């Protein structure tokens, strides 16, 4: 193991890490927002809208992210969608993540006890108020564990963005590895970086869950 090479690569790796975070965090936030929108549309929209969205989600969840991002970035210009690589990456990750978040959020909304919604109706809340003040906060508590899981999945999916020339962590590290024929070092750095990121995310998630314990259903 060439420790000197690893030490010398740190600045470059930090740049790659920056790009990974730049794709992952805003992409996840957008995915959550978009997923929420879709879940709410499915919750309140008519059956036709529901079926249409379900089919769309099926396609997004049924095909590899790699295929989606490839078609978006390299196929997009032929139908007039000419995004630069980071934009396409962010957009692709958001839409892909939204397909999963929509399902998670839908499950969460369904798991909020009906009585809590009825109690809101009984004190005179409107539908929008019930959604905003009862359904969404309770749903957020219920879906926290699966949301953390999904965040980790999305973080690992950012590795795919190297194929559309986003210089993220995987692209940088594999580049270093091949430039110096340092495959072992590259595998080691990849494992350490991603494992560290997932463990940190998991740790944050578990801490948050503990802090939110007192909000659990009585």
């Amino acid at each position, binding site marked *: *193991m*060439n420790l000197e090479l690893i030490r010398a690569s740190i600045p470059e790796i930090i740049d790659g890490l920056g790009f990974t975070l730049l794709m992952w965090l805003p992409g996840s936030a957008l995915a959550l927002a978009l997923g929420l929108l879709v879940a709410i549309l499915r919750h309140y929209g008519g059956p036709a809208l529901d079926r249409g969205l379900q089919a769309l989600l099926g396609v997004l969840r049924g095909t590899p992210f*790699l*295929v989606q991002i*490839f078609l978006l970035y*390299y*196929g*997009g*210009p*032929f139908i007039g969608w*000419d995004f630069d690589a980071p934009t396409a990456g962010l957009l692709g990750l958001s839409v892909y993540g939204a397909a999963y978040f929509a399902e998670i959020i839908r499950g969460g909304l369904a798991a909020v006890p009906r009585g809590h919604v009825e109690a809101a109706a009984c004190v005179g809340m409107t539908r929008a108020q019930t959604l905003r003040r009862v359904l969404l906060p309770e749903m957020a508590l219920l879906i926290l564990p699966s949301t953390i899981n999904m965040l980790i999945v999305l973080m690992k999916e950012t590795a*795919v963005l*190297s*194929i*559309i*020339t986003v210089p993220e962590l*995987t*692209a940088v590290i*594999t*580049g270093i*590895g*091949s*430039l110096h*024929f340092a*495959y*072992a070092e*590259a*595998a*080691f750095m*990849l494992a350490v970086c991603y494992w560290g990121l997932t463990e940190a995310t998991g740790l944050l998630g578990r801490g948050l869950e503990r802090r939110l314990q007192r909000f659990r259903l009585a």
Partner: protein
Amino acid sequence: MAGFGRRGFVALAGSAALGGPAALSAGAARAAEDVLARVKAAGVLRVGTETQFAPFDFLDNGKAAGLNYDLFAELGRDMGLRIEFVALPWESVLPGLDSGKFDMVSGPATITKARMERYRFTPPIAEATCALLKKAGDTTLNRPEDMAGKAIGSGKATSQLEQLKKFSATLSPPATVREYVDFSQAYADLAAGRIVGVANSLPNIAYVAAQRPETFALMATPFGEKSYFGYIGRKDAEYAGLMDAVDGAVLKMRSDGRLTALQQKWFKTTFETPERVASPAV
């Protein structure tokens, strides 16, 4: 499709045991054994290949085809060996060589100084000098100097990328260089119009242009230093016998005209290649 690389040794991880790949090779037990003797005894030469590097090596309707296959078939006949191809994506080929999955690599790479420090190359089998692929009907790119100020792509960590960067620096304004993990993506981006040219080795580019003449065209004038393709083997002492024997077989094909015939068959042109590249220009 996670093509992490190509030709440029953009190989990924793999030989993740401790130490350099050469140090702890393929099981200590096998280390002392002479590889040529083992290959002769088994009657089989195992070679690593990638099947995604037309016209050297590709699948034609599911069947392996290309210059490499024909050349190694001749080589096997000359050496009295059966050739066994182990197909891997390129990013896994060199780690596979290091971990002993096969005896040598039947995919060519540009012979460079850096690579020669690490691997042993066979005599050159074709030219690898940089050329440019442009869109069909593009009349603005006629000489290498026309690249000035334009967006040009190439494969990450390839010798051709280095050549492109070096040449671009001499232009004013320099070209905007875009790096792709895989040349297929660079070609796709050329088709999509995000870049106006792709720099890759002449044989590859000529083949792409011939395959899709409606989309792509070749800018004929090469640029940068003259360079060559050779096959890769290991430098370790126990491999020396095997590599010497392979070198001999390649040189024989070079001298009796079979190499030129193969070039003509697959490239529709021939290259003048030296017997050996001792100190590469790149």
